[in-house]
């Protein structure tokens, strides 16, 4: 009887079929669209806390879907970043080698960034000269130079490409070459 009662409960335990939140990065006054499909009674818990790390102005909004049925409970959590204007972030891709040029390219996560954020400035982030290709623009960034506004208003999401020539030492020994290239960005909300 014990086994039967447990198995009967199990056949009706809660389940989360889907749970989505969009966008995953917002400004302080933006809305988030949250959808879910569950078996069982669903409750959405919302909790804000500071973003971990040195930046004290950004926050993490945690959306936790708790589903209960027949005494069982399951949950799933999605984090949404709440960013103020002018916040600094990073775009980074792994490198491949084409001749003597390191290329780091890819799509900056459109689900993470959505449509609400543009570039304000870009700055070199790997300690070496970079050529940056993005949204039809090409620009050169030098280490330790001031933030560059050439990409002002272009989307944060989407295709990016960084190029950098190998140094003489790296040419002689590829083990010295970096496995990633990055830029620092400041973003603006619109």
């Amino acid at each position: 009887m014990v086994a039967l009662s447990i198995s009967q409960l199990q056949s009706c335990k809660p389940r989360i079929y889907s749970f989505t939140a969009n966008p995953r990065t917002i400004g302080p006054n933006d809305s988030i669209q949250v959808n879910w499909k569950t078996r069982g009674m669903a409750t959405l818990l919302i909790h804000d806390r500071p973003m971990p790390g040195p930046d004290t102005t950004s926050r993490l909004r945690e959306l936790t879907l708790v589903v209960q049925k027949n005494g069982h409970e399951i949950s799933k959590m999605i984090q949404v970043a709440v960013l103020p204007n002018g916040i600094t972030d990073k775009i980074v891709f792994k490198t491949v080698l084409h001749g003597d040029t390191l290329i780091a390219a890819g799509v900056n996560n459109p689900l993470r960034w959505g449509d609400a954020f543009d570039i304000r400035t870009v700055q070199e982030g790997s300690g070496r000269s970079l050529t940056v290709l993005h949204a039809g623009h090409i620009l050169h960034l030098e280490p330790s130079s001031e933030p560059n506004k050439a990409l002002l208003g272009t989307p944060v999401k989407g295709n990016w490409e960084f190029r950098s020539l190998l140094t003489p030492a790296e040419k002689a020994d590829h083990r010295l070459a970096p496995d990633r290239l990055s830029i620092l960005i400041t973003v603006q909300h619109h």
Partner: protein
Amino acid sequence: MAIENIKTIILLMFENRSFDHMLGHLSYEGLQPNADGLREPLQQYENIYQGGSYIPFSIPSDTQLSSDIPHEFNQVATQLARSSVNGKLTMSGFVEAYADFTQENPNVQAEPMGFFKSTQVPITSFLARQYCVCDRWFSSLPTSTQPNRTMAFCGESAIYKTGLQVIPATGNLFDWLNQAGISWRVYHDGFSFFGLYPSLWSYVLGSKFRDYERLYSDMQQGDVPQVIIVEPSYQDAPHIGPDHPNDNHAPLAIGWGEDFLRRTYEAAIANPAVWKETLMVVYYDEHGGFYDHVAPPDFQSQTTHTPPFTFDSLGPRIPGILISPWVKSGSVCHSLFDHTSVLQFLAEKFTPGKPYSAAVEARRKQTPGIASLSAALSDTSSLQPTPPPAGPIFVQSALGDTIATPPDSAMGQSFEQAARQMMTLKPKKVRDKYPELYQWKAAVDQARSG
């Protein structure tokens, strides 16, 4: 020599956690600065996914995860992320493997990047600080459970990934111990992992496999063999009633395993006369998909299958703790260990001058070579054991969680197939050894019949 003073060796292998995930806090919190765990700034451990940078984070609370974390061979290759430019393992693909596996956009704090604070793993942290923590213990192969456990208890593997398959047990520890005339016993808390090896069923159903509940009493009374293997209750194994897995396999909360570790340590120190000659080894089969920052060294391994499958590195680091009066209290061992270090040590101890096997010896002779656990021992004994923290450990509970639907993992399917075949082919012995399986089978068949 310390090795001569050790008469009893206890092996406890948990499931699926990386060194940084469980013990990265040792250096991060300044509790054991010599251990190669995590340190500020955590940005130095960045993982990359679709242009984004993902950083290790302190797990807010110990809860059941929403899913397992990927750790099969191809996924481990993604996690290790060998650079096509400089040839190095960059350890930067854990989030990418997780996103591919879940088919979901990862959180800023993606689950593979989480690490526990000392207060969340109080027993593991206590033992690591009280005895000897090994910070260069890598899983033998950069792949999943079945090949790594086979390496741990056979010294070689015919398989390169986990699946619903017959796993050969060539070179197994039990045969070796018998041939060497060494007494041994397995204490299993639930269905034994060795049930997945049909060639080992005579052992699994024999008198040397005992219920875990007897361990403390046996130790207390001095009824102690030379080698003891302690098995937790596996997440993927059949379960019924209040029996709850405690092997630390994700998505389990970690508290169950912490309590099991506490109980096993309490058994190890229960009898002072036994304790003063004991070495207890706590280790994990593999990293379970959780981030670790130390790249495994390049290392050539092949399966014994024809044609062989070749690995070019060890697997990610796992937590390894040596608990004994014959290790220096509060020490860190940096020697290169993998699971065959245990087998190497057993041979060093019980058959001096004669290696465990040619395969294990070949791993010792490679460059870099796998060391024996004896590298961590100390000739100076500290005989008084320290009791473990006695505070409560809070965990979630849900009875009968694996009854209603068939397992979707290869490990779960393997366990169920082994249990069912064993019940069909060896019904009398199974009824004596694993009586709970009959109620489990009835409940499963009833639940799934509709």
